[in-house]
């Protein structure tokens, strides 16, 4: 049973008359029961439904892309066109335009990021799955750490370690007196805040999006069976749940895009020495 279903049971149980009222969904939404769990080298692996959704989403997008490009034609079919359009947005719109001429080698990484996040985000509005693996902090964090490693590596490779760390600590064109403030902020920003915000932005959006959907859905159910005049607000709650689903669709695409664009921006800073 999913945790949302448990929450639903709680909502329905509230009718029982002990006066507890609407049981709002809690953080337990994101901690469903473990379906498969084992331990390797002292590390606990717990495969919850969210883990399986991650695997399904990843396998699905991979299968779709491979199928779309298995027999590519000069004149693309619908699938191929869709896959190529997605990659073109990343390759031309992000890798080439944000990073510049040196950006094209990063297009595969950025494209992978984009498709991975998009597919996993999309799970938040797929019926019966309805939760994005990206609302588990571990997954955005993994991506952010990959990005962090990449842009630091590229910065050191392109500019040399000394130049890269010096520019990060002492941005050119800043008055010496201001360095007392600027240096710690810059170092903190480049090496800690960037990956952290990158991960948290994606995580929080999907987390909050899911919470909103659950609140309005459960609210509608609760209001229908509450048994007093509040029932008139039930359609409103239902409508909001539907509206928020469409809003979630926007967030799904936007967050995948934003994550990729910000990654490209950081890579641009590493490829081009600071001015």
């Amino acid at each position, binding site marked *: 049973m999913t945790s949302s279903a448990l929450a639903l049971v709680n909502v329905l149980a509230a009718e029982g008359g002990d006066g507890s009222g609407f049981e709002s969904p809690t953080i337990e939404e*994101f901690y469903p029961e473990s379906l498969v769990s084992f331990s390797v080298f002292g590390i606990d692996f717990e495969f919850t439904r969210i883990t399986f959704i991650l695997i399904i989403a990843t396998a699905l997008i991979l299968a779709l892309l491979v199928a779309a490009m298995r027999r590519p034609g000069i004149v693309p079919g619908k699938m191929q066109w869709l896959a190529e359009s997605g990659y073109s947005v990343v390759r031309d719109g992000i890798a080439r335009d944000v990073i510049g001429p040196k950006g094209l080698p990063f297009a*595969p990484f950025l494209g992978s990021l984009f498709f991975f996040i998009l597919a996993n985000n999309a799970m938040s509005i797929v019926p019966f799955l309805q939760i994005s693996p990206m609302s588990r902090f571990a997954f955005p964090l993994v991506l952010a750490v990959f990005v962090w490693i990449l842009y630091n590596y590229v910065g050191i490779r392109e500019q040399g370690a000394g130049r890269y760390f010096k520019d990060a600590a002492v941005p050119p064109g800043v008055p010496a007196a201001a360095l007392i403030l600027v240096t710690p902020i810059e170092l903190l920003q480049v090496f800690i805040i960037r990956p952290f915000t990158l991960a948290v932005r994606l995580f929080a959006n999907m987390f909050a999006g899911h919470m909103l959907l659950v609140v309005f859905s459960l609210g509608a159910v609760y209001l229908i069976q509450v048994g007093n005049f509040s029932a008139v607000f039930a359609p409103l709650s239902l409508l909001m749940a539907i509206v928020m689903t469409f809003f979630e669709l926007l967030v799904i695409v936007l967050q995948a895009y934003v994550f990729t664009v910000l990654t490209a921006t950081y890579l641009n800073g590493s490829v081009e020495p600071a001015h």
Partner: protein
Amino acid sequence: MNILAAEEHNPLIPPVGEIIVGIIAFAILYFVLAKFVFPQMEKTFVARREAIEGGIERAEAMQAEAKAALEQYRAQLAEARTEAAQIRDAARAEGQQIIEELRAQAQEESARIVARGEEQLAASRQQVVTELRGQIGTLAVDLAGRVVGESLADDARRSGTVDRFLDDLDGMTAASSSSDGRGGSSVYVPQDAR
């Protein structure tokens, strides 16, 4: 671990197992996409661009070819026109020449015909004169015999007289034909001077 226990979960503290799952999932995706799918797309982009550019190039080549053919056609046309004009001029000149020749021939012919006519005229006149000479002698003798009423027995004298008369006549005729220049006239015109 009992997930449903009442313990407080901190959503910002990720379980290590999940991190590893995430790493594996993304690594597999990245590997397959970067190794197979995206290169395939890049290849397709290149092929498509080449197909489009190739099409444009082909079209340009065809246009150039058509232009060259048109130029050639025009040149040939101009050449043909010049040639035609030359042929026309030559034909005209030839025609002129033929006309000239024909005219010359015709003139020659007419001159010859005229000359022959004159010759024939002169010959027939001579013949007439010769005939007349014989007849006139006989007629004159007959006439004279009848007028005189006697037969002139001496043929020798008679013929001598006639011949002398006729010679006189001839001399008069030659003088008159040379003086009036026309010749061919068989009419006898006596001259005052004789």
